[in-house]
């Protein structure tokens, strides 16, 4: 009896003792993330968690850096018209544009029949992890996969715009694209695949490529990776271990090993951080803003919390087909009636700045010279009166025919922050006589049916990810309204039609001169703030919770994540 008890105690001791081993000199970083990538293939499945991991192990040709400038990572020099690496050229004979594409009215009409030739040179020392040099053969292979409709590549818009690619030598190639636009030299999403390994996986049956790709079947193959780190081991669904890549040509990373653990439950994520099983919670896929604020209040001595506003534009899309919401004055009144400053102060500690338009304050094209909607319920009331909605005895507004001013407000169910915001919105609008009914749906219903097929009758609250200097063509252009007739193509869910805005967007797209473009962007933002196609709320922020000894992590604020500069991260105890 005593012996069994003793054995039990010893066993327990061994088991618990594992918790108390002394820490050696730190050469690894354990990162906690809330999502595990569904695949590590760079171009299949759009997932921010995946691009986070890939930032350690691969490099795109071009990307936006922390200051939102376009820079070269895998290429040697950014091709521009000024340095001669980019040229405007005629399109091949017989080339046809898609029906329904509009063109800037004030621009040189011949530009509509022109494309561009942009030349890139791959970094001379760029090598795959197994020693094979990165060459234009990989570029051609990637293009082949991207062009193929059946290969499962998610973002094929990029490849559709390419007419052809010319190989000049082993490291230099020219992309011929089908249009002139100011973003001609950014091929951020052209992510290289290793031809020497993947060609066999592609085989004759591209439809099976997704399942046969080595990124799924053999992810630890060093030949797949060419960044400062490579994937050493992977536990599907729970963790990825990254080790230094000996063939990396850039600055040698200080941290030898990076482990990314996936913990979906945010409370458990916090608990893991506090107990030491993870060191750092990645802002890109970590705690929500209010959880981070609460965490900071409790643990600011032990951890640094960095907040960075990102390009998740949280807004309300009204359905302009609704007679009340189609009236600009009503939309403006709705915005005047909201105290967005107090909202963001109280709920987000002021870390999520109020947005005036869909352009982020961090973007170089941003201007403050637009109509602002400070909290002004008197002004809101005046606008509603002018629009014909008068306050009735029941505290609600009615039009001349007695119809009440009432809408449904929808958002993704289960997202606490949004539900919080909704309820605040509801009560602030009630105060000026608008009856708003909250109706939430799970995200999959909302996005696949209600929003995308424009089944909502009132307002929907959601966010979309944009990118630096992003022309809001799909969301604001009048040809982009999803209808049954066009197969629900387009993201102009509001059904906003403005010829002025259409033309501004078309002209911005082809304007290569930065100065002239800036002017047009300012005009666009002013028009947006005046018209309010959507009601802007704020730009979401991400919280990076770091131990005091981690340095060099620089959040970017857009979808090209901080891990693309992982070789600069330092451990300084």
């Amino acid at each position, binding site marked *: 009896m005593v012996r069994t008890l003793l054995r039990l105690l010893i066993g327990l001791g061994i088991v618990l003792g594992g918790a108390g081993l002394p820490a050696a000199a730190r050469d690894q970083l354990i990162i906690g993330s809330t999502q595990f990538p569904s695949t590590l293939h760079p171009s299949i499945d759009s997932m921010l968690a995946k691009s986070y991991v890939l930032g350690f192990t691969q490099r795109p040709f071009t990307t936006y850096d922390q200051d939102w400038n376009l820079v070269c990572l895998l290429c040697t020099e950014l091709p521009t018209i000024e340095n001669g690496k980019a040229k405007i050229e005629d399109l091949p004979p017989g080339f046809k544009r898609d029906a329904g594409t509009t063109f800037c009215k004030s621009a040189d009409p011949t530009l509509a029949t022109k494309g561009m030739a942009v030349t890139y040179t791959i970094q001379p020392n760029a090598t795959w992890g197994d020693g094979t040099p990165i060459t234009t053969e990989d570029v051609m292979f990637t293009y082949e996969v991207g062009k193929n409709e059946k290969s499962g590549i998610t973002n094929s818009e990029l490849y559709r715009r390419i007419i052809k690619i010319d190989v000049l030598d082993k490291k230099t190639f020219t992309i011929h694209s089908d249009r002139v636009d100011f973003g001609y030299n950014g091929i951020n999403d052209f992510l290289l695949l290793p031809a020497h390994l993947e060609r066999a996986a592609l085989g004759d049956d591209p439809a099976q490529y997704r399942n046969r790709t080595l990124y799924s079947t053999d992810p630890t193959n060093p030949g797949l990776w060419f960044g400062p780190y490579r994937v050493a081991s992977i536990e599907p669904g729970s963790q990825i271990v990254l080790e230094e890549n000996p063939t990396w040509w850039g600055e040698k990373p200080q941290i030898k090993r990076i482990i990314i653990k996936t913990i979906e439950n*945010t*409370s458990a994520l*916090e608990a893991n951080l506090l107990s030491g099983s993870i060191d750092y919670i990645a802002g890109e896929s970590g705690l*929500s803003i209010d*959880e981070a604020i*609460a*965490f900071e*209040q*409790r643990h600011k001595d032990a951890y640094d919390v960095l907040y960075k506003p990102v390009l998740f534009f949280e807004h309300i899309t009204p359905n302009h087909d609704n007679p009340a919401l189609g009236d600009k004055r009503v939309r403006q009144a709705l915005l005047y009636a909201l105290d967005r400053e*107090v*909202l963001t102060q*109280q*709920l987000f500690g002021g870390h999520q700045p109020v947005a005036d338009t869909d352009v982020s304050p961090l973007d170089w094209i941003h201007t403050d010279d637009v109509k602002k909607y400070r909290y002004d319920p008197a002004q809101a009331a005046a606008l509603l009166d002018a629009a014909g909605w008068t306050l009735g005895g029941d505290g609600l507004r009615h039009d001349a025919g007695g119809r009440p001013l009432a809408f*449904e407000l929808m958002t993704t*169910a*289960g997202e*606490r922050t949004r*539900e*919080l915001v909704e*309820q*605040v919105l509801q*009560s602030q609008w009630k105060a000026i006589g608008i009856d708003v*009914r*909250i*109706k*939430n749906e*799970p995200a999959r*219903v909302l996005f696949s*049916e209600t929003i995308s097929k424009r089944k909502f009758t009132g307002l929907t609250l959601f966010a979309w990810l944009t990118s630096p200097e992003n022309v809001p063509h799909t969301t604001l252009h009048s040809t982009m309204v999803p209808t049954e007739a066009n197969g629900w193509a387009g993201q102009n869910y509001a059904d906003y039609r403005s010829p002025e805005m259409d033309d501004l967007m078309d002209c911005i797209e082809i304007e290569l001169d930065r100065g002239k473009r800036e002017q047009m962007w300012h005009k666009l933002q002013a028009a947006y703030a005046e018209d309010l196609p959507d009601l802007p709320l704020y730009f979401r922020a991400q919280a990076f919770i770091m131990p005091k000894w981690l340095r060099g992590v620089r959040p970017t604020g857009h979808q090209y994540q901080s891990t693309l500069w992982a070789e600069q991260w330092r451990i300084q105890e």
Partner: protein
Amino acid sequence: MTTPRADAETLPAAGLRQPLGAPRLRRTVRQRLLSHPLAVASAALLLALALLVLAVPLIGMALGVDSETPNLLTRMQAPSSAHWLGTDELGRDLLMRLLEGGRVSLGIGLIIAVAAAVIGTLIGLTAGYFGGRTDALLMRLTDGIIALPRLPLLIVLAALDVTKLGLPEQWAHSPLLGFWRIAVIITLVGWTTVARLVRGATLSLREREFVRAALALGARPARIMFVHILPNLAGPIIVATTLSVGNIILAESVLSFLGFGIQPPMASWGNMLTNAQEMMWSAPMLAVWPGVLIFATVISCNFLGDGLQDALDPRA
């Protein structure tokens, strides 16, 4: 084939050997129930809870608090004279939210328990009385449903798009959809216990003299089932139903916790726990109270059911 098993449902085969409707029996049952202090306490607690949640609007008026309007400036406050239990993450009075959540959770528990009992009784009676093929078919169906892993099935059912099933859009968009949806799906899997219990009991009661007498007198099957057999089963059915309320409340709270049940802003004890989970460190009481209430309600139901079971068991 398989012989009828003596399993948990038929073990409390109480009340079946009593003669019908003797007033002396009822008094004895009540006396025995009252002699169980825990059962009495549980009944009292449940009654108190029920009264409290029914009186929610009155309480709101008396305390002068509004449980609907969010107030950004009073978020997550500690208990005070204005808010007896403090406020939740939206600044609403916690006590009121708990009571409203109780209204939903208790209401759903009761509705489902009764509905499941009714369905289960009907199925069990039919299977037990008619026997043969009907019995085999119904029992296979019952076994099939019991065999399924419950929670995953509930999750799949809760995620369904009802418009694809032909439900008109208006109903699909009403705020009560979440409430009724949960009620329906938990009932769909909840009737099996009562069905097996009733079927087992009916099988044995079917052979008794009073049934044979009724048959000889020309009574139709429906009459025999509902007028003669059913009253004898009242005891075990009540016990099983009471015991099931607890499980139903737990099932609803799990579904709401996972995000498939009652949707905010409608409060239920389950979804108050989902929201409060992330605030565990800064406002732990937000998570403790709903859990405590669920615990108290479920354990009371269990004690009450247990007490009823003992009271109705003639052999104790």
